[in-house]
């Protein structure tokens, strides 16, 4: 999956979808994930990246990551 080309993220975590005019705010982890998604990634790679970087229970990380990615898909911010 990959961030759509019409979506811009600022350093502050403000996301603007130029195609729909919608905007969103991200927390620091969200910014990090979306920055990772500027290059095409599979879920497993993202999971491994976050799991290595942060001290977190794998189950919690998996659940939160899946929730977040499904939100991004629902809002049309990322492509499959």
């Amino acid at each position, binding site marked *: 999956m990959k961030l759509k080309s*019409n979506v811009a993220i600022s350093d502050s975590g403000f996301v*603007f979808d*130029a*195609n*729909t*005019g919608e905007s969103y705010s991200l927390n620091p982890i969200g910014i990090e994930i979306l920055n990772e998604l500027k290059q095409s990634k599979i879920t497993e790679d993202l999971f491994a990246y976050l799991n290595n970087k942060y001290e977190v229970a794998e189950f919690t990380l998996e659940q939160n990551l899946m929730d977040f990615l499904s939100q991004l898909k629902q809002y049309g911010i990322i492509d499959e």
Partner: protein
Amino acid sequence: MKTKITIAITGLNNTDNPGPGVPVIRGIRESEAFDARIIGLAYENLEPGIYIPGIIDKTYQIPYPSAGSDELMQRIFQIHELEHIDVLIPNFDAELFTFIIGKERLAEKGIRTFLPTLQQFEEREKTNLPEYGEKYKIKVPNSKAITSYHDINNLRQEFDYPLLVKGKFYDAYLAYNPEQVINHFNKISAKWGLPVIIQEFVKGTEVNVIALGDGNGNTIGAVPMRKQYITDKGKAWGGITVSDQKMLDITTKLISETKWRGGMELEMIKTSQGDYYLIEINPRIPAWVYLAIGAGQNMPEALVQMALGKEVKPFTKYDIGKMFIRYSWDMIGDISQFEQLSINGELEL
């Protein structure tokens, strides 16, 4: 050097149901090409645009088109004798018919316009939307013009509730049952006359395009906007320019096929499946035109250039992510201003 020019403009009602007059004037005032004397044409004494400092040089009262087309035209000619109007920009749907059929008479007197043809104007009327969609291969919601209560009882055969009840010029209300349709029918028909239009309600995001056609099939400008803040009258109180290529494609195709002449606004619904339904075409510059100007396309200026017979190069870009936010602002006027307009039918601030 700027060209000195006199431009007469209607639609000065900057209310919660705003006319395009004031933003059109702002575009002309900001033009590098024109040094304009702006003549405001007002139907009502309290149209706010009349009283805003720096907008209008002189305002004249004019009679409503419903008082008779000839009366309106005679008043325009009377004002023309005093002001030598070069270009007239009408901004109300309800007056356009009069000016379209009268444009040769205006031209004979030296008053230039840049309006759609009568055929272009009539075929996009709300009552003709299904045929329009079929002719130009654009998805449109099912619509039907009704003229009596009797028609309301039969709506269930063709429409699911909720549905939209619309006036032929302005106003649209959502109705969830026949009783609400009757209420809206009464309100709308009293204000705008018959027919009243019943339209299928398409769920999605409302997106609009402002565009300008040169009358030869070329799109001179087009800017898509998504409404961000909508009033209870359905008017955009805030909006943002978006990069919607599909909307731009629909717009340029439509202008190319219809050879649209003048300003227009396409109102569309984008569904969650990504389909676009055309719900209305307004045959004039919309009230949110200042957003297009702010995004880099001064369409009022381009329209005046074309009215003067000058060749205008199409705009090739606009800024994405430009926003407009309307606001209300209390001005202090004086009863003497109101008196001048009421008694003399004219006012110079």
